[in-house]
């Protein structure tokens, strides 16, 4: 699901560190954002906005990490509100609900692993494009 490709230029040590930080930011935010999914989106968005004027390599990776947070945000929000409805309304625990939670955990875990891997690679200055998110970032983020 990940592609190591050549970036249009060789990123400097400083750029690699900043780009790697964007993934670390989302990683920390995933942990904090598990009970409240909006937190990781806000944290990544804040980091993205802070690096809007950074170099292309840094912006590119901030965008990829932000976009990947969006899908998780929707998945986790559904889990969150579904759970709330079970606690506070007539809704009951069903196979569908537990199935959804397990699917959400699998996707969160996949994202978590991918994020760690990308953070390490980016720190080394290696450009990693995720499947789907990489293309989407290419469309959004212009040099």
């Amino acid at each position, binding site marked *: 699901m990940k592609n190591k490709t050549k970036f249009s230029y060789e990123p400097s040590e400083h750029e690699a560190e900043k780009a790697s930080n964007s993934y670390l930011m989302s990683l920390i935010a995933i942990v904090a954002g598990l009970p409240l999914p909006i937190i990781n989106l806000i944290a990544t968005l804040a980091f993205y906005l802070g690096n809007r004027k950074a170099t292309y390599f840094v912006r590119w990776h901030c965008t990829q990490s932000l976009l990947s947070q969006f899908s998780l945000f929707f998945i986790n929000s559904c889990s969150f509100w579904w759970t709330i409805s079970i606690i506070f309304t007539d809704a009951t*625990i069903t196979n569908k609900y537990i199935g959804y939670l397990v699917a959400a955990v699998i996707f969160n875990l996949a994202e978590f692993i991918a994020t760690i891997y990308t953070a390490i690679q980016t720190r080394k200055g290696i450009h990693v494009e995720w499947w789907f998110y990489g293309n989407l970032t290419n469309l959004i983020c212009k040099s």
Partner: protein
Amino acid sequence: MVVLWQSHKLNLQILIMKKTIIQGLLITAIFFATWFVLAKVEWISIFKVQKVSDKTEEKLGELFWEIFLKSEREVKNPFIVNSVDSIVTKICSKNKISRWLIKIHLIYKEDINAFALPNGHLVVYSGLILNSENPEELSGIISHEIAHIQLNHVMKKLIKEIGLTMLISMTTGNGGSEIIKETAKMLSSSAFDRSLEKEADMKAVEYLINSKVNPEPFANFLYKLSDLEDPTTKYLSWLRTHPDSKERAEYIIEYSRYKKLTFESILSKETWDKLKNKLKD
């Protein structure tokens, strides 16, 4: 040359966009497929969620019924019990409901009331039977309460009103007898949500039609109750706990209007009259 290069760049952009859209759709499809497959797994039985709640429900049913048994007098006359039992049996058998799930209890009380307790306990007051004009009216109310049981409304209501933790602590003997008494009283004297009542009404009409019992008397019964001058009179518990009876009577009639219907008598007139006479004695 520049134009050619720009057009090539545009084509490339479109290609990437198409690829991205396909990948986006694919990733969404993968998520839903994963969910779909995982939803097929019997998680409830794996985690024993149902088992825990079934046991809790069983215990709660016993607890609440004991409360009523202590304070009220149960009808023991075999003729009365068997007659009402035959109504319940017919409704159950025609609607593929396990008969043993419904535990019917008759109580001597002037209140026009019937209510469901956890674990399929169905309590009917003698006042309700005496104020029903025919067995079809009584069958309607019984069907309505069976629908509450079958649709798991009782436990839903209890969990919403007092919470699962409290319910479980009741069953383990830590709930306090006052709270148990109050909860039992709440079940017998307060309504379900409007949406749950409507759902139970619709299900009751279905039960009646499947049992070849005319649902119209059930609607008439509701109309009759709502037409009484003083609906707050102390004997009209079922009306107080089931508001908007007129509206409900109307949608019951409306719902059953378009069904292909043939009806039979659920209890002979002779049995019905004898049942009422025996209850009056």
